[in-house]
């Protein structure tokens, strides 16, 4: 365990004051290793809050550089960072917030060749990605490696999240595979209200901190969705599906799959 310094007791005092967290919970947070996949709309608030909370080690995977159009919602990146690798920009902000946090950067795409190797270094994985192929990849890799993760998705005014622990419902239990490429909302149809990313990302960050401190009940076997237009939140109970292709009793998937990206989600660069 870590012995907190006086400065750390001061820094984390609002956590320590919480009966459910206390010094012990804060120490668990400081011993935690979290991988954030995607330093975009969701990864930004997730990383900022996890850094502020004092997570011991944060890994960030992202192959992109900051673009002007990212700044509407990716609050970890600033105007001066345009053109800079997102992992570099994110690392700088995390360390400015909290020098206690160790940051690992992966300036690459997560795919079937590197996913298991990267994931194995962490205790909890946060999906902050923007496309279905990688969402299924993260799901499958975490199920295979027995790692817990937080799933997150946003679209227009809506958000969706659940938390997976080994044995609870996974993404494939709910959605068997990526939707056919032709039906994914096209680039011109879609969009997202910037603050939605903050709403969903902070739920993911809170779930991560709950996981390490053991506080409350995680969003396992439940899919939370919200519609910011009406501010209605809906939680749907979901069950582990025995016929699930990855976590069912007779899984048909025994290796990671690189699904093809629909053309409109390919980078313009």
């Amino acid at each position, binding site marked *: 365990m870590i012995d907190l310094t006086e400065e750390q007791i001061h820094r984390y005092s609002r956590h320590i004051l919480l009966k459910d967290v206390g010094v012990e919970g804060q120490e668990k947070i400081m011993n935690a290793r979290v991988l954030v996949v995607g330093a975009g709309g969701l990864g930004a608030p997730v990383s900022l809050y996890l850094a502020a909370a004092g997570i011991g080690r944060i890994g960030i995977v992202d192959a992109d550089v900051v673009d002007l159009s990212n700044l509407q919602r990716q609050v970890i990146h600033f105007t001066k960072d345009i053109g800079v690798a997102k992992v570099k920009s994110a690392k700088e902000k995390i360390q400015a917030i909290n020098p206690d946090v160790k940051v690992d950067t992966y300036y690459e795409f997560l795919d079937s060749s590197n996913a298991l190797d990267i994931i194995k270094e962490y205790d909890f994985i946060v999906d902050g990605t923007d496309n*279905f192929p990688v969402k299924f990849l993260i799901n499958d890799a975490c199920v295979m490696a027995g790692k817990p993760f937080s799933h997150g*998705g*946003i*679209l227009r005014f809506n958000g969706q999240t659940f938390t997976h622990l080994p044995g609870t419902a996974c993404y494939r239990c709910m*959605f068997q595979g990526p*939707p*056919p490429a032709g039906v*994914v909302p096209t680039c011109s149809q879609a969009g997202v209200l910037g603050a939605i990313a903050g709403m969903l990302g902070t739920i993911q960050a809170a779930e991560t901190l709950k996981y390490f401190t053991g506080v409350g009940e995680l969003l396992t076997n439940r*899919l939370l969705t919200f519609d910011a237009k009406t501010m209605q939140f809906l939680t749907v109970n979901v*069950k582990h599906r025995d016929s699930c292709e990855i976590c069912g009793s007779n899984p048909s998937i025994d290796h990671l799959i690189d699904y093809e990206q629909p053309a409109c989600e390919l980078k313009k660069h």
Partner: protein
Amino acid sequence: MAKITVNGEVQEVQLPLTLTELIKQNNVEQPEMVSVQVNEEFADRTEWDGIQIKDGDSVDFLYFMGGGSAIDN
């Protein structure tokens, strides 16, 4: 009329009604983008046509949601 629950809200529907028809009635624009649970059991999309809705059923539509980053191109 039968009373069922769709995504937490009560609906009155006329039976007989298949799951495919219920999806249509609820104006689901892209059925390919939705996953459906009936009474908390996932219904395989190849079986939607054959599933008859019963009084008191609880149906959930779960929508695919991607992300927010790459769609601004």
